[in-house]
């Protein structure tokens, strides 16, 4: 049996670990609250944007933006993968990457090349060997739209120049603070939401030119998708970390309890032994 002193120091170190995980849990909980607020605040914009864009898909527009046209042959596809910068958030990133790998493997089987752009250093370290064309890391808890523009633009340009024929977004969906699910959505070409409305001939009036308006709308649409994805991912990261740290603290507590039991048993054994030594010593004297 391990010595009493060793068990005591083991308990001490687990207690220290528990303090750290507990603190991290609390920090993640408060950060999650703020991240959720940000996510909820930007959601109406993204939703309305999606609504407007799906209206556009219903009409007969004089100017068809390249993001709307489906290309017949797909030779190369692009992926934008949004991950966290830091670890210690459970299986959040692993699950996301698994999903991305599955998707990418499916394309490779069809002999389609894949270009990848990443947000967050976790994705960068995993996908580096697949050829990352653009990356931005270290976005912090409060990313601004400007921080995301560069990487997004690389992929949009690639699409416009015909280097990629489709663009997907891989991100975590925030279901609630306990559940986050990885999700892959097609960004371009834009898939019109299925609506049962009858398509009749109409077109917008444009101010100023149709091209100008639609171009600026499309860019804003994609930006808002990416922004929403990043903000949502932060909320996911924080809540996943909170859960992971909570279970770490709980496990540490269990371990301490078990060790305390071992410690008490050992202590009791040594006392019993001491008593029996004294008693037998006294008996020998008599």
């Amino acid at each position: 049996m391990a010595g009493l002193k060793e068990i005591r120091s083991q308990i001490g170190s687990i207690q220290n670990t528990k303090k750290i995980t507990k603190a991290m849990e609390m920090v993640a909980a408060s950060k999650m609250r703020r991240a959720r607020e940000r996510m909820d605040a930007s959601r109406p914009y993204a939703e309305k944007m999606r609504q407007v864009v799906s209206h556009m898909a219903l009409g007969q527009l004089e100017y068809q933006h390249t993001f709307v046209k489906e290309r017949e042959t797909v030779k190369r596809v692009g992926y934008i993968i949004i991950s966290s910068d830091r670890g210690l958030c459970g299986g959040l990133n692993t699950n996301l990457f698994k999903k991305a790998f599955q998707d990418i493997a499916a394309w490779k089987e069809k002999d389609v090349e894949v270009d990848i752009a990443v947000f967050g250093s976790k994705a960068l370290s995993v996908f580096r060997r697949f050829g990352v064309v653009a990356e931005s890391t270290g976005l912090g808890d409060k990313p601004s739209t400007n921080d995301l523009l560069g990487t997004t633009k690389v992929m949009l340009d690639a699409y416009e120049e015909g280097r990629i024929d489709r663009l997907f977004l891989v991100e975590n969906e925030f279901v609630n603070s306990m559940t986050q699910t990885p999700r892959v959505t097609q960004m371009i070409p834009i898939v019109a939401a299925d609506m049962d409305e009858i398509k009749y001939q109409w077109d917008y009036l444009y101010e100023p030119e149709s091209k100008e308006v639609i171009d600026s709308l499309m860019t804003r649409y994609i930006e808002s998708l990416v922004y929403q994805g990043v903000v949502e991912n932060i909320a996911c990261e924080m809540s996943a970390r909170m859960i992971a740290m909570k279970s770490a603290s709980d496990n540490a507590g269990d371990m301490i309890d078990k060790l305390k039991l071992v410690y008490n048993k050992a202590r009791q054994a040594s006392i019993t032994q001491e008593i029996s030594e004294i008693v037998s010593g006294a008996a020998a004297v008599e």
Partner: protein
Amino acid sequence: MAMTMHLDVVSAEESIFSGTVQELIAPGTMGDLGILPGHSQLISTIKAGELKYKTDDGESLLFVAGGVMEVQPSIVTVLADTVVRAEDLDEKAAEDAKKRAEDALQGKDPQDLDYEAIQAELDAAKAQIEMIHRIGRTLR
């Protein structure tokens, strides 16, 4: 019953207004646009200026800067880059922003200036100040 349409005004940060309106006047880049229910489909970019809408409770004012507006016969959606409620407009902040933009336009090497962005900022600040003055005259 008066004709009405649904209006949504959202900025990237929040949803400012969502409800039923009878009339809307928005600052389009090609000039102000008055929208009544049943308007034919229209898409316009918007510039810095005031957006006025009429509900059952009367008229309300918002300051918008940049963005896109989509009109459908019964739904109008304003996707603005910036929206400020008229009550929340801050003259001092607007003056400061104007000054900053003007300073940026002068003096520096014109080549490393993002001329368009600063000009847009300046226009927004000017429009804000103008609007504050106009409201000040009509309301107080």
